[in-house]
């Protein structure tokens, strides 16, 4: 991810969540619209419709939500809730993001368990899985343009990306090994390049 533009100090969001329940229902509605992932909906709802965030703030928050461990959109809801209502806001936003989708996904799983012996149901799920794999790959590919401005340079980025893919997909190295073996040297290299830039 490229360095996020620093938000203008004189530019502030036009609106904010009115109350904890506003926060809860807003995030619930948001989560329930997100098929195959919530990110696209977050940007449209919170920046364009509700105006809780300016675009600059959104990009900056997203960069942090993305690099911190944990589900990205869950992290983002924590950060936005926390900014307006402290720790209570963070928990309420998190609850909004997870409660209803969790109930729905369990209902789906139970529904599917009842028919999981039907060849058509198994087939449908295989088809869904094939699409789901495509959605995940595309999410990664959509982030490629962010590498263009990466200070580490295109060669280093390509090497790191290819090695990461090979380690995970081919050699089946545990994630921790990849983060230590590739992430640490990458951090050192980025640190060095930033010093020269």
């Amino acid at each position, binding site marked *: 991810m490229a360095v996020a533009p620093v938000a203008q100090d004189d530019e502030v969001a036009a609106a904010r969540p009115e109350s904890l329940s506003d926060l809860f229902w807003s995030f619930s509605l948001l989560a329930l619209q997100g*098929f195959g992932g919530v990110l696209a909906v977050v940007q449209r709802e919170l920046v364009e419709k509700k105006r809780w965030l300016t675009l600059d703030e959104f990009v900056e*928050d997203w960069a942090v*939500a993305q690099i911190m461990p*944990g589900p990205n959109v869950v992290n983002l809801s924590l950060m936005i809730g926390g900014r307006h209502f402290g720790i209570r806001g963070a928990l309420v936003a998190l609850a909004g993001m997870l409660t209803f989708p969790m109930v729905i996904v369990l209902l*789906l799983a139970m529904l599917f368990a009842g028919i999981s012996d039907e060849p058509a149901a198994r087939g449908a*799920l295989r*088809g869904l899985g094939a699409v789901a794999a495509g959605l995940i790959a595309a999410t990664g590919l959509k982030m490629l343009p962010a590498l263009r401005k990466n200070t580490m340079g295109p060669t*280093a980025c390509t090497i790191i990306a290819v090695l990461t893919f090979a380690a995970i997909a081919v050699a*089946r190295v545990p994630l921790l090994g990849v983060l230590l073996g590739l992430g640490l040297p990458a951090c050192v290299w*980025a640190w060095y390049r930033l010093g020269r830039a």
Partner: protein
Amino acid sequence: MNLVMTPSDWLAFFGHFLSLSLLAVGGAIALAPDMHRYLVDERLWLSDPEFSSSIALAQAAPGPNVLFIALLGWNVGLNTGGYGAAVLGMLLAMCGVLLPSTALTYSASRWAHRNRTHRAVRAFKLAMAPIVIALLVATAWLLASALYGKAHAGISWLLTLACTWIVWRTRIHMLWLLGAGALLGAFGWV
């Protein structure tokens, strides 16, 4: 599958999710390969179809993709017995995977916001970018290869590649793709 899990097994289960939480850089889905290694290959708590169907159902449902972890816990619980165990598995999995990361994110996001121009913060962001991207593509690769055993492998890969391209390059709503995938599968074409 009929499974017996002792309290210490549940503790190990919870501990594994706890330990993975802070490694979920790039989203919870980045944990999928390691969870597959642990739950399916090592512990035999889940079968391959159960694992892939958890991910596929969570992707098909609205909401954050992290809910596939709730389903993994739910299915491990179901394999040991009734719905009580399933709810226990679900709660342990979700709490385990979310507690460390949310605590860290909440405190760190404030710190990072204050220090966003600091060289170390910028170096970390830059270094993680290619890794996070490759991780997503590798996850998709692993999911697809676990899914397609023998039959129809060629057409299924084609469907995955087509979806990748469509989502990457066009603005077609994902719901249409998921629906099309389910239909093609139900008719036995993929």
